[in-house]
């Protein structure tokens, strides 16, 4: 078992003929992902790595039954791509693109959610269900199948922790990167509730960072709606206020959104909070009684 993606995922790649789109399509295929279609307007009828390319998402869905999509198109065109996927009937949209204007995302978010579509990202590395499917850009070789679910706002910091879990013999069900932008489609709480309902997931790792209050909301959810153990790490304890730390959403504004506040909220909710990312695997092992 797993969440969101597995062997039954039928993936459509938006922007499949672009540099990033092509590279990662080959990586996703090599991982065993069922990539059934690509979309690049004007390139319909072509093939890329044996994947048929279509001019529109609707054509692709009609011809291949795609149910999940991943978006690699540049920021100015990404909002349109997301809406096209929603209108084509895709149920899970993963947007890798970084740099989408916040106000565009705000409308796109409501457009998708109002129609019951789940959006992950933007500005995220995507997700992996170990040995089943990989949607996005995470390195596949660092994951191992196992009982740990992972959700994170970061990319490489996620890989760091996944790698460490795998090396400690703690495999994963699904690893989800929800993205570093201020407005993202899927929050910590959404993913936590999916892990709580997934019988194969026995413990969850949550990796947050400064900015916003998603971690505080996650803490409330853990305290009230979660029976499985959660281990947390928050990046940015040394970040100065008022400065954006790389991610558009990683900023302490008006004294709110600090790492200390988030760590306190998580700890009070019963989350085992790591001071150092290298402690995460140990805390997960302890939580699972290993």
């Amino acid at each position, binding site marked *: 078992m797993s969440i969101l993606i597995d062997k039954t995922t039928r993936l459509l790649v938006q922007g499949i003929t672009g540099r990033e789109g092509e590279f990662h399509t080959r*990586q996703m295929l090599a991982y065993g992902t069922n990539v059934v279609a690509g979309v690049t307007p004007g390139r319909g009828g072509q093939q890329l790595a044996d994947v048929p390319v279509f001019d529109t998402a609707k054509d692709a869905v009609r011809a291949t039954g795609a149910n999940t999509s991943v978006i690699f198109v540049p*920021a*100015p065109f990404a909002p349109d791509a997301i809406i096209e996927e929603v209108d084509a009937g895709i149920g899970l949209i993963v947007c890798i693109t970084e*740099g*989408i*204007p*916040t*106000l*565009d995302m*705000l*409308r796109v*978010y*409501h457009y998708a959610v109002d129609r019951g579509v789940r959006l992950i990202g933007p500005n995220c590395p995507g997700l992996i269900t170990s040995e089943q499917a990989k949607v996005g*850009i*995470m*390195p596949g070789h*660092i994951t191992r199948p196992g009982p740990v679910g992972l959700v*994170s*706002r*970061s*990319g*490489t*910091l*996620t*890989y*760091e922790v996944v*790698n460490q879990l795998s090396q400690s013999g703690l495999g994963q069900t699904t690893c989800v990167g929800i993205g*570093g932008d*201020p*407005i993202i489609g899927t929050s910590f709480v959404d993913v936590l509730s999916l892990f709580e309902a997934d019988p194969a997931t026995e413990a969850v790792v949550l*990796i947050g*960072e*400064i900015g*916003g*209050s*998603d971690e505080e*909301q996650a803490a409330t959810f853990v305290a009230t709606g979660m029976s499985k153990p959660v281990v947390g*790490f928050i*990046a*940015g*304890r*040394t*970040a*100065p206020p008022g*400065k*954006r*730390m*790389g*991610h*558009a*959403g*990683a900023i302490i504004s*008006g*004294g*709110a959104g600090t*790492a200390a506040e988030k760590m306190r909220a998580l700890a009070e909710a019963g989350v085992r909070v790591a*001071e*150092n*990312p*290298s402690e995460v695997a140990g805390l997960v092992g302890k939580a699972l009684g290993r």
Partner: protein
Amino acid sequence: MNIHEYQAKELLAPHGLPIPRFRVAASPAEAREIAAEFGQPVVVKAQVLVGGRGKAGGVKLARSPQEAEAAAGQILGMDIKGHTVRRVLVSEAVDIRREYYLSAVVDRGSKRVILMASNEGGVEIEEVARQHPEKIVRVEADPFLGLFDYQARELALAMDLPKSYLRDFTRVARALYQSLVEWDASLVEINPLVTTDKGAIWALDAKMVLDDNAAWRHSFEQLRDLSAEDPFEREAREKGISYVKLDGNIGCVVNGAGLAMATMDVIKLKGGAPANFLDIGGGAKAETVAAALAIILSDVNVKAVLFNIFGGITRCDEVARGIVSALGQVSRRVPMVVRLVGTNEEEGREILRQAELIAAQSMDEAAARVVEVSRQ
């Protein structure tokens, strides 16, 4: 991106916000001329990208052109929280009956633009939120249809604005919302919004934060105050590197923002102090690494450098060659610790060993090593 008050007022005025007549001066003589032209008392205000100007003495009332010249003379060149004042805004003075607060802001929680208002104007809204959260009222704009007039009226009534101002306030709120949307701002704040004894309403101060992600559809770059920016941060930005200067002595070069923050945190846990946040992005290309290293080494406080690269799919031998070739391009040498994970990491480490760099296996070990060598 933060912009100055005078820039915000220039962007907001065409939307119909009631802003008292203003001009910008870079010298006391200019301030005198502007005050003479306005022919009435003016306020001379420091233009810096930080709050708390009033408390620092950066805002002065002048009743004559001579007083305006004297005030500008005192304020220009003043240091406010590390920012040097290079320009002052000269604005017509207004008789204030009562001060209010009004802002439009992108709210991450509700994922909507919200308007916030309070009759505790003229003080920092964070302070009001702490002391009297009940004094802040808010409404959410519809993501597709925008702000409705009735919502503006609800705000006005909820903060006890006299009813004679209902129509004017609605116009102000609407203009504020429209300017946020038009300029891709994440915040437009009027603090204070004031009423006068003559029954007028004025936006006396304005703050705007623009969304960097939307820069491609505006001409934001010309609004950027290069003199207010750290020169290293400016150079990094121009080279597409995310860099924030800090006070420590250990330079960090990391791929990915989350990992970069975590690297700083671990350095601190090991008893060191990070000199910067730096994210070179996904690919870790040789020229980006070289540019990053040059920026870090131009900070004279830096005594050691830590590279923390989680390559994943990226090939570590290529990253290692990039680091080595970057070393050939910089003049100053300090001890450097490199931690590389990803495809071909063994070959990568071998290349680093030959270049006499300290190779570490884990992030923990790398941080401990760099703290140690920074003390030698």
